[in-house]
Each structure stands twice: as structure tokens, then as C-alpha cells.
């Protein structure tokens, strides 16, 4: 396919790997932020063709994985209500809450629908004036503009039956949390290309400077990812800690300004609980008070939720790059995609799911 095949070219890949090989002199730990990058690395087998000195650890950038258990449980409670059509991105349906998932709500007769865009949920609200339509607005800065746009559109249409359950999170506070942790091992970052396409990369200068880590804005195809690794290794070997852009065909320094404006108009920054990690100050986005009418948490009385997390799951340590999926005692035994203990095993962007699907077998190279 044009504009993709070029970035999956075997000869080009080999060329970049050779350059990384020639550059590297010592071990480095590099974190790719985004779960989409993790999956591309595993799906293409990039981890096997990189020099052994490079350890790629997998970051918290999986929107499904970090959505707090409390919010998943609230989603289940709202979706169970008889007059509600609950709309969600498909990935979210299998994520375990304390007592079940959205699939089990659907099996019990709840109206749970998969949509590709929050604007589809607005359409459903318009077509079903006698129902309350709720959209599960999860994700990073990538999904946030469209989710905000759905609220603006519902308002413009005068809809009184549309609301969103917000679990938006921001990348830079998570990078601060990882780098500021006493157990941190990360020496360089591949920043998430899609997030940067919205936000630009002006937010990262402060992080690179404060923690002395190189940050490279990186895409998702094999050539993009390897270029990101190469540029990061070049900086690490040279003792530099700059912000660089290896995804310039999509990302500019200032980002998508109209999208950023919509975010400011609709959302405000708030503290947010990340599943498996805990509360990260100022790491979330929630609706401005003037949009209370579109806030599902305000509309539905789901305040008192008792959550219960699996005691075995180490998703939190995996999302912070402290451990890798095979180091979990439950990996591939009690915990698998059919019976996930944590969200990292569910989502197509979750690290455990990527390992389970693509690298479960140690003798894969044999």
C-alpha cells in the first residue's frame, strides 16, 4: 500500500539496523511510550533484529490499559441501565471491571454498541431521542479532540440525551512520573507520534532538560521506529538530551492548533487515577463545568463504586517499564486474552497482549 510499504521496506530496515549497530557501544534502556508502537515492534519482530545492547521497555501509552478500574465499573453501571445506549471503542468491551466487562453487560441485555468515532455516538443520540446515549471518552491527547468535538456537536444540535464518561489522560505527566520514580530505568524515550500530531512536541523540552533524557518523536512503521531508535542511540552515545523529531511527515513542533483550541474550550486539566499506576497529579482532562449537562458522571448517579482489582496482576509495573510481561507469574497461565486479569492483556495496544500474541514461545528463533 502506498505511503505504508515504503516504511516497511526490508532493505531500508536493514540499512538502519546496520547504522544502529555501528553507533552503539554500550547497553541502553529505551522506552516507547505508545502501545501502538509496542505492538508494531512485536508484530514486525523488530525486537529480534535490534542489537542486544538495546532494551526496549514498554510505556503506559495504552488508553484502554490505564483507564481506572473505578471508571470501568462506572461504565458497567451506566451501561446496565435500561434506558441507556452505551457507546464505546471496541477495545474497551473486553476490559475487566470488578465484576465483569461490557460484553457481559451486553449479554445480559444492556445496549452496548461499538463505534469508530464519538461523532457516530452523537448520531445515535439524534436517532434515539427517547434513550440516553453515553460515549466512553477514553484515550490520550489523540482521541481527546474528537471526543471534545462530539460534545460541541451535541450542544449545537440541542441534544439533551448525549453525555460522555471521561477518562482522558495526558502523556507528559506520565513521563514525569516514570522518570521521577526511584525505580526508573528509562534512559531515552520514543515519544508517541500520534499524540504529537495533535500536541506537537513543545511540551517535551522541559522534560528532556529536567531529567537529562533524549526524546525522539517516533512513528509506528518499522522504518519509523528504527529511525527513532537510531536517533535516540546517537544522542545517548554522544551524551546529549535533546528533543528530536523522527516523524516529521506527520508531526510539527507546535502540533495541530485548532485541535488544541478545542481541547482548551471543552476540557480542563485534573488529577487522574491510572490503572495499575495510581494517581498522577494534573495528568487528566475532564469537562469544564459549563458542559456539566454532557457529563455522564453528573447525569447518572454512579458515585459510590466499590472496586476490586486482581491481586496477582502486575500491569502497573509493566506500564512503568519496571517489569516485562513474561516476568509476571500469571502471564500465559491464569492470565490470557480469553481470561485477562488486567487490561494490558486485553487491548490491542497492551504490552501483555503483544507478548502473548507474538512472542509467547521462547524458542521462536530456533
Amino acid at each position, binding site marked *: 500500500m502506498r505511503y505504508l510499504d515504503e516504511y516497511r521496506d526490508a532493505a531500508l530496515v536493514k540499512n538502519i539496523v546496520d547504522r544502529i549497530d555501528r553507533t552503539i557501544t554500550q547497553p541502553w534502556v529505551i522506552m516507547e511510550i505508545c502501545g501502538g508502537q509496542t505492538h508494531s515492534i512485536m508484530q514486525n519482530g523488530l525486537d529480534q533484529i535490534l542489537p542486544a545492547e538495546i532494551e526496549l521497555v514498554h510505556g503506559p501509552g495504552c488508553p484502554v490499559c490505564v483507564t481506572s478500574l473505578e471508571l470501568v465499573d462506572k461504565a458497567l453501571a451506566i451501561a446496565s441501565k435500561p434506558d441507556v445506549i452505551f457507546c464505546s471503542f471496541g477495545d474497551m468491551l473486553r476490559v475487566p471491571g470488578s465484576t465483569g466487562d461490557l460484553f457481559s453487560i451486553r449479554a445480559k441485555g444492556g445496549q452496548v454498541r461499538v463505534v469508530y468515532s464519538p461523532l457516530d455516538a452523537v448520531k445515535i443520540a439524534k436517532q434515539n431521542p427517547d434513550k440516553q446515549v453515553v460515549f466512553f471518552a477514553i484515550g490520550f491527547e489523540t482521541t481527546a479532540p474528537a471526543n471534545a468535538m462530539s460534545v460541541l456537536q451535541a450542544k449545537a444540535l440541542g441534544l439533551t440525551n448525549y453525555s460522555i464518561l471521561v477518562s482522558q489522560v495526558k502523556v507528559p505527566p506520565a513521563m514525569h512520573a516514570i522518570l521521577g520514580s526511584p525505580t526508573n530505568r528509562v534512559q531515552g524515550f520514543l515519544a508517541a507520534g500520534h499524540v504529537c500530531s495533535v500536541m506537537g512536541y513543545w511540551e517535551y523540552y522541559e522534560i528532556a532538560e529536567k531529567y537529562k533524557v533524549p526524546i525522539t518523536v517516533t512513528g509506528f512503521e518499522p522504518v519509523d521506529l528504527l529511525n527513532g531508535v537510531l536517533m535516540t542511540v546517537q544522542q545517548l552515545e554522544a551524551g546529549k538530551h535533546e528533543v528530536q523529531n523522527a516523524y516529521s511527515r506527520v508531526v510539527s513542533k507546535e502540533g495541530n492548533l485548532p485541535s488544541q483550541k478545542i481541547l482548551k474550550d471543552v476540557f480542563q486539566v485534573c488529577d487522574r487515577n491510572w490503572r495499575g499506576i495510581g494517581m498522577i497529579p494534573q495528568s487528566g482532562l475532564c469537562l469544564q463545568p459549563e458542559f456539566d449537562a454532557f457529563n455522564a458522571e453528573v447525569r447518572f448517579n454512579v458515585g459510590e463504586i466499590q472496586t476490586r482489582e486482581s491481586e496477582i496482576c502486575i500491569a502497573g509495573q509493566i506500564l512503568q517499564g519496571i517489569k516485562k510481561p513474561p516476568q509476571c507469574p500469571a502471564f500465559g497461565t491464569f492470565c490470557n486474552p480469553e481470561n485477562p486479569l488486567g487490561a494490558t492483556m486485553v487491548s*490491542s495496544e497492551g504490552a501483555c497482549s503483544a507478548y502473548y500474541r507474538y512472542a509467547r514461545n521462547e524458542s521462536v528463533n530456533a
Partner: protein
Amino acid sequence: MNEETLPVIQGSVCPVPLKHHDTIVMGHGSGGRMTQELIQEIFQPHLASPQLLAGNDFAEMIPAPSHGNGRLAVSTDSHIVSPLVFPGGDIGRLSVCGTVNDVAMSGATPLYLTACFILEEGLSTSLLESIVISMSEAAKEAGVQIVAGDTKVVEKGKADGLFINTTGMGWIPEGVEISGAGAQPGDIVLISGTMGDHGIAVLSARGELGFETEIQSDVAPLNHLIRSVIDAAPHTHVLRDPTRGGLATTLNEIACQSNMCITIEESLIPVQPAVNAACEMLGFDPFYVANEGKVIVIVPEAEAEAALTAMHLNPYGKNAAVIGNVSATPVSRVLLKTKIGGTRIMDVLAGEMLPRIC
């Protein structure tokens, strides 16, 4: 009362029941006259066989009119698809081809089909007839006879328009030994054409993609193609159609049944550019998307070339390709060599395929 005050009787005053020619109503499943009319007007004209025309509650057949010694192969499948009509086919063609193919995967020559219809009250009879016609055409193409059938009607809301169950019977000639457990080290893995066409065509017809595609379902009877493969490669070990769960899931079934490792190469697997594009946009992997007119063929290396040539000569196999091979270890695994030279596991699909978020 004189003649002038007598009422003028113009005809029968008892209202004649409506005929309900246009839509299916509960009466069509009563077993009475309406059922008879439905059979006579819709089913018999298109699906007539000596057994059906005999009008009994059973069909009599000779299992192998001319095939000598061998074994009987039977397969049954219930077909549900939304929408009922999709680019490249409909539930009628699907219900015949699906079962014909399952029988043919044993190496059998499919001979007979039965068909059970569950109709939802309110289904248009003209739509039903067009679906029955397409069953008839698919059966003719496959060379099978429909020998028994049944129709039930359920209330509105209890079914999705129309469900069709078909059971197929075929004859496995003596000496043909084909099974999912038959893959052996050194065998070559072939596929008869492009992957993912049916699944993406149906999704597209549902209007759920948010964009238009021109992708047609590949639904087709494969028995003639398979017969020519077996003739060309008489030691064929495995035949299986990668339907639900796609190529990846079906190869895993074979790897597990055979206790073998199957290694395939991403760059060798044919996928239409439009299917690839749709999958890229939705976050699907074409190797997990359903096919309804493709077959995985596993043969000894010495017969691989002959099998490939035989497939290329059939219109349903013109894009056939060698995609990999079988080895002894690691057991029960499917490995994929990626385009850029890595190797990874290709696992079965867990539950429903879900589109990703961003």
C-alpha cells in the same frame, strides 16, 4: 316485504383471507395450505430434485452411484449473516458453498444437501425467492442436489430475517486420506487466493466501515478446484478452508491437530490492496478475517508444484501461492516470518475481533 325492499345480494359476504404473497407471516410455518403454497411457489421451482418432488418426509439416495468403495462424509453448518445480501453473494450462496466446501475438505465429492430455513415473520417473499435462486445456482455450479428441506417461521424479532442450515453428504473415494492431523515435516503450505475478502465485504455492506469499498465476497464452491488438486497431488495431506478466524486461526487448528510447526512468510500471502487498506484503517489483521472461497492445501514437497499448477488452472485459484512449510518443532505453533525479516508467533483469534482505538 316486496321485491323492491329485498336486499340485493352482490356476492359472498364472508371476507376471503388475504393471500400474503409479499411477506412471510406465521401461517407460512403452520404446515397447512400456506406452507404448501410457499413450498410450491418459492422452493420447488428452483430446488426441485427427484427426492423433493417425491413429496415424502424423507429422501432416498444411493450413497455412491458410481464411486465404488469409499466412505461417506457428512457436514452440517448453520448460516447467519447480516446483511442477507452482500457484494459478491448472499446467504443462499453462502449456505450452499459453506457446506459443500466443508464436505469437499475431506477429499469427498459432495453429492447431496439438505436445507432448513428459519424465516422471520415479515421477511419479503421476493427476497426469499432471490436467495433460493442463488442457492439453486450455487448447487448447480457445485453439482450437488438438494434432497430434503424444512421451513419454520418465527415471530418478528426472534430471528434476523432468515437463517439457513444446510447438511451436506459426499463420497470419499478409496485411498484418499485427508485430515487436519495429516501435516508432516517438510510439507509445503499453499493457499488458493487472497485473504480477507469475505469478512471485509460483509463489514462494508453493513455500512459500519464509514467508507465505501468495492470488495466482493469470495464465496464460492471449491469442490471442483479441490478435486483437481487431489488428482494432481494424490498425497495431499491437509485441506481446510480458512473461514471464521481467518488464515491464522485455521493454521493454528492444523498445527495443533498435527502436532507440527507451520511457518509462513508474510510477503508470500496474497491480500488485495483494498482489503489491506480497509484493515489498516480499522486496526484489523487480514490474516484473521473470514474467507468463504479459499482453501489451505498442505502437500508433500514433491507434489507442491503440481498442486499449485492445478489451482492456477481453476478460476477460484488463479491467485494461489505457496506460503510456507511444515516442520517438527516447535510443536503446535504457527510462526510468521515478517516482511522485514523478523519471526513471530501467529496466534489464534481470542473472541471477537475488535477495532483499535487510535
